[in-house]
């Protein structure tokens, strides 16, 4: 059983290599990728079920005991996120053939996709700080490959900035590891958590923690480090944007959650209050961005940012329920962002333009797309009874209990503006007189809509069926808050 925990990381890598080799025969590659994704999904689902039932599985790579080897930790949080990742990934794999040019598929879309999944899953599951860096690099490298796929002029221009930002933060990551190793002499997360208790110089540790926070914050797109995001996410193909929007920033947030609940928990008065301020500004500037454009894809892209603010808010509040809120929101946001990017991709294909001012009446020809988009927008804004709502009430409750009224008000207002930004697409793009030049590829649009439908369905379930999910989230947040479970499961003698 224990060795199965490596498979969510190693299998996609294997699949990536195979996909790269298969590339010449595009139909076989597609089929291979689809079958493999589904199989992975089923496998990870089973694994998640087992872990939810029986508790964390900790694998020590090569059989070397923690903290000397690398621990791969399948705790409920990690496996939940890996599962969500695979769900979105599978949807993307079925979406991809309809939206990518065949050249793009041939030039390693599938191989890079599997590499991305390997990196993301690894980042979620690793119990080692340096190994986290390595997985970050894997997923970033895959994302670099995906973002340049197609070689557009603007695409390369923005990719360059994207790569630079991430490269810089990766370097800071290494430096942070160096600092931490200097202070604690270890890189295993659980071991670190154990050791930081007795570090005399908490001050410098906190500063190092902040540097590490910024490393993740660049990836998570927290204010004021998110500049790279909107343009970089808007240039690639929609399926790539969906993978980015759903997965990449979330890895950053996950890392913040992990590190700031497990390791840097001793100066919360300073660190976590900084988070609260940053969360507020992240929300504000994110929605401002979303309101500032008529590019539908950019609107959705900007909406990634306030969501990051929400998740950061929970970490900043640092109460079990607020953390639960962050985790719930994290899962929800992965699903709904994936869905929205899929749908926007379909919309852009249908309307033949990204400019909201040039589109109208799309719903008349593509009602399913319109309605799913409408529901997705509501989910995004946190309207009950969908998934966004559950996370939101937990976060708001956390905020109100901590008497962070300003934060709560900002959170609510930004939810409203998120809704406004999305409804503008619905009202001015989907509603209205039937536009000229609307695509006639009904079949293709329908196929492009279906992955979105599936994910929206999942989001609805996460809301209405919250009772099936929430207890898990609650226990995850308690585990995060208590720390001891994680430490003892990794460092068991």
């Amino acid at each position, binding site marked *: 059983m224990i060795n199965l925990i490596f498979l969510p990381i*190693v299998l996609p*890598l294997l699949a*990536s290599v195979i996909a*790269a080799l298969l590339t010449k025969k595009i139909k076989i590659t597609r089929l291979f990728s689809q079958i493999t994704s589904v199989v992975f999904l089923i496998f990870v689902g089973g694994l998640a079920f087992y872990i939810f039932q029986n508790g964390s599985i900790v694998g020590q790579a*090569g059989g070397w005991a923690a*903290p000397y*080897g*690398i621990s*791969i930790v399948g705790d409920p949080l990690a496996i939940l996120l890996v599962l969500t990742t695979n769900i979105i990934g599978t949807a993307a794999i079925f979406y991809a053939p309809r939206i990518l040019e065949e050249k793009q598929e041939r030039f*390693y879309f599938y191989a890079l996709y599997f*590499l991305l999944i*390997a*990196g993301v899953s690894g980042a979620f599951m690793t119990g080692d700080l*340096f190994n986290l860096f390595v997985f970050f*690099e*894997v997923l970033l*490298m895959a994302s*670099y490959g995906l973002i340049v*796929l197609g070689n557009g002029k603007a695409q390369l221009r923005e990719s*360059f*900035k994207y790569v630079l930002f991430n490269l810089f933060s990766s370097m800071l990551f290494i*430096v942070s590891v*160096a*600092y931490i*190793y*200097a202070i*604690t002499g270890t890189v295993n997360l659980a071991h670190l958590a154990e*050791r930081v208790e007795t*570090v005399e*110089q*908490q*001050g*410098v*540790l*906190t*500063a*190092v923690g902040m540097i590490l926070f910024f490393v993740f914050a660049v990836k998570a797109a927290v204010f*004021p480090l998110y*500049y790279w995001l909107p*343009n970089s996410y808007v240039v690639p193909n929609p399926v790539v944007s969906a993978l980015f929007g759903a997965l990449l920033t979330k890895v950053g947030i996950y890392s913040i959650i992990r590190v700031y609940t497990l390791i840097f928990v001793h100066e919360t008065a300073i660190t976590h209050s*900084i988070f609260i301020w940053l969360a507020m500004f992240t929300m504000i*500037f994110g929605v401002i961005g*979303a*309101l*500032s*454009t008529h590019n539908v894809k950019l609107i959705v892209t900007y909406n990634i940012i306030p969501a990051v603010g929400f998740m950061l808010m929970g970490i900043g509040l640092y109460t079990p329920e607020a953390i639960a809120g962050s985790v719930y929101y994290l899962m929800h946001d992965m699903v709904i962002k994936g869905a929205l990017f899929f749908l926007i991709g379909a919309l852009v294909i249908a309307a033949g333009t990204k400019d909201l001012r040039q589109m109208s009446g799309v719903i008349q020809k593509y009602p399913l797309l319109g309605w799913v988009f409408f529901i997705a927008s*509501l989910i995004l804004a946190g309207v*009950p009874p969908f998934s966004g709502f*559950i996370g939101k*009430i937990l976060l708001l*409750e956390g905020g*109100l*209990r901590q008497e962070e*009224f300003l934060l709560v008000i900002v959170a609510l207002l930004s939810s*409203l503006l998120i*809704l406004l930004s999305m409804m503008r697409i619905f*009202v001015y793009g989907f*509603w209205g007189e039937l536009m000229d030049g609307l695509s006639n590829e009904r079949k293709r649009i329908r196929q492009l809509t279906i992955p979105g439908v599936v994910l929206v369905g999942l989001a609805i379930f996460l809301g209405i069926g919250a*009772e099936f999910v929430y207890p898990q989230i*609650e226990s995850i947040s308690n585990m995060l808050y208590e720390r001891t479970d994680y430490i003892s499961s990794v460092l068991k003698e």
Partner: protein
Amino acid sequence: MIFAIFAPLLLAFIIPLLSKWKHKVHTGWLILPIPFAVFLYFLQYVGADFQPQMVSVDWIPSLDIALSFHLDGLSLLFALLISGIGTLVVLYSIYYLDHKEQLGHFYTYLYIFMTAMLGVVLSDNVFGLYAFWEFTSISSFLLIGYWHHRERSRYGALKSMLITVFGGFSLLAGIILLSIVTGTTSIQGMVEQSDVIVNSEYFPFILIFLLLGAFTKSAQFPFHIWLPDAMEAPTPVSAYLHSATMVKAGIYLMARFSPILAGEPYVFIALSLFGLVTLTWGSYMAVRQTDLKGILAYSTISQLGMIMAMLGFGTKVGLFAAVFHILNHATFKGSLFMIAGIVDHETGSRDIRKLGGLFTFMPISATLAIFGTFSMAGVPLPFLNGFYSKEMFFQASLDNTASGAFAETLVTIIPVLAVVGSIFTFIYSMYLFFNTFTGKSQVEELPKHPHEAPKMMLVPPFILVLGVLIIGLFPTIFNESLITHAADAVYGGEANKEIYFWHGLIPAFYMSIAVVVIGAIMYLTKSKWSRIYQVLPGRLSMNRVYDWMVEKSETASQRITNTYMTGSLRQYMVLLLTAITVIVAGVLVKTNGINFDMAETASITTTEVIVTLLIAVAAIATIFARNRIAIILIVGVVGYGLAILFVLYRAPDLALTQLIVETVTVTLFMLCFYHLPNLKKDTSSWFTKSTNVIISVAFGLLMMVVGISAYNSRSFDTIAQYFIDNTYKLGGGDNMVNVILVDFRGIDTLFEVAVLFGAALAIIGMIKLRRNKGAN
């Protein structure tokens, strides 16, 4: 009961299918039975011996969110209105909406709304209430935008959604605070703890949040502006949502929490002040309108203000009158909307300036309108229910008591505002009726030749007018079986019981007379004073504020975003670095993290120092290099220097790798930059240059200070000894670094290779996959 609530929603899911399945039959007929059945279901509870009851289903017990429904007098009253008027509206819509319309959509939205509204008034769980509440906003949005090819419909839909959802979110904050304070999510549970709530330090917040929710939904000044634009919805919708039911959700909310809030000084001030201002402003603005539905919309605003004010008075009379007027308003306003719809439908116009003399063409409608308008005006006639509640309102406006300067002033103003508002109400009521149905007809100006509506279309307004009359004639019946129970629920105990037509010559009666007299005079002399509308609202219009805000939200956010989203890499980097430097340095100082107490360090040799210096010099030299090959080679120097350091610091494997990597990198650099332009002189401004210097030096210093402090804060032995001890024993090799790489940390190495693999794929993709020239 749960089935009754959800029946419309369940039906809503199959309506699209129904509408496609039976094309010949108007979809309305197929689905009419459901609301009627629901109405009958709730009707069975009506009676003097009604007892509140509760049903509950778990939803998310972990979060204390449940679908629990509490049926008391207030809920029952609303449930009957919702299902009853719902039935009439569906019936009416069958004649109002043509076959060719997208009926499936229309009825789907409408039935979603029915469930949502029933949910709002029946939910005991605050989160359940909130969920339904938002759904009323959403279905209202969809219904207003039903004719979405019209620009005004889209505008109105978005406006109503924004304002009501804004309120909804505020409400959410309010109920979360309430649940925090009381530890329960049940409204009944909260009512039981009203002391706790009122004395909580959060009470002001709770109040503000709840009021915002209620005021936006019930179109109270200054949030009323969405309602006139909501008139873009088909008239059945206006009659139903935007007059009889949804807009009363805010009223309902205040009534529901009345046992907690009533009598609180701030509640009194807020509700009566905003209510009366809304009443006055709404009625004042109604007179100005030229669209029949516009008049009715402002009239609705005004009436809602009146109810809100009565809830604010918190007195027995006030609360009772509020409940009573909810019912009355639903009847007469519902009928008037339907008549307006008929006029629109049969003449093709709602512009009151074009209408007139329609009595001869549509006598039945006109007759029905008489009752509606006169009831609305509060004309003292015994068979008009509007009069009863109006007079109770006057009565209630007189017997408020309050302490505090502001509240006392308010107490004296209340009757004045009540009378002023009512005068305008009288005026627009008369205006509405007489300008439409009497006077000179301008048939030739109308798009259609007017004639009486089909019989069945007249049935719903007729039934409502019948309601007006029956309530007017037999108030006691309704009182004992329904209104009393509702008033009890609002009051939280035994409320007022009596409804009389004739109270005697009490002040309220004089006020009624005054309203009629002054109103009549002013109506007749309207042309003399109507110029006042050019001054007020003039620029003060709240619509302008809204439009300004929406426009600003776009232009300002564009401006803000454009100022920092310039696409300039340098600028992004500057912001990033500044943020990190400032915050980390701040934390470092705040936590006393700087640690210069020297820990043990290695000896210093001349060679090492020189090599270090050389690397530093070379690194600095890159800044001044002015040709591309030079800078590449200088970077090579840095790399080789590092390799030397690795050798000096006993890291042969590192040195080896560094050498290989450096050589290949330099070669690659050459390869890629050979065709690129040479380096140019840095022509940026002195300011830019010095900023760059400051930022890079500051960041370097930060790294240095943190580095030195971290080094000096060494608290543990590293885990190195384990590797030293076990490299051979367990790993089976003698190169520790190698053994760590391939064995202890094999995953690192595997995925390091994966990175190279990815890089290779990406590079191949970039080189081989080029877009055809046309695309670029």
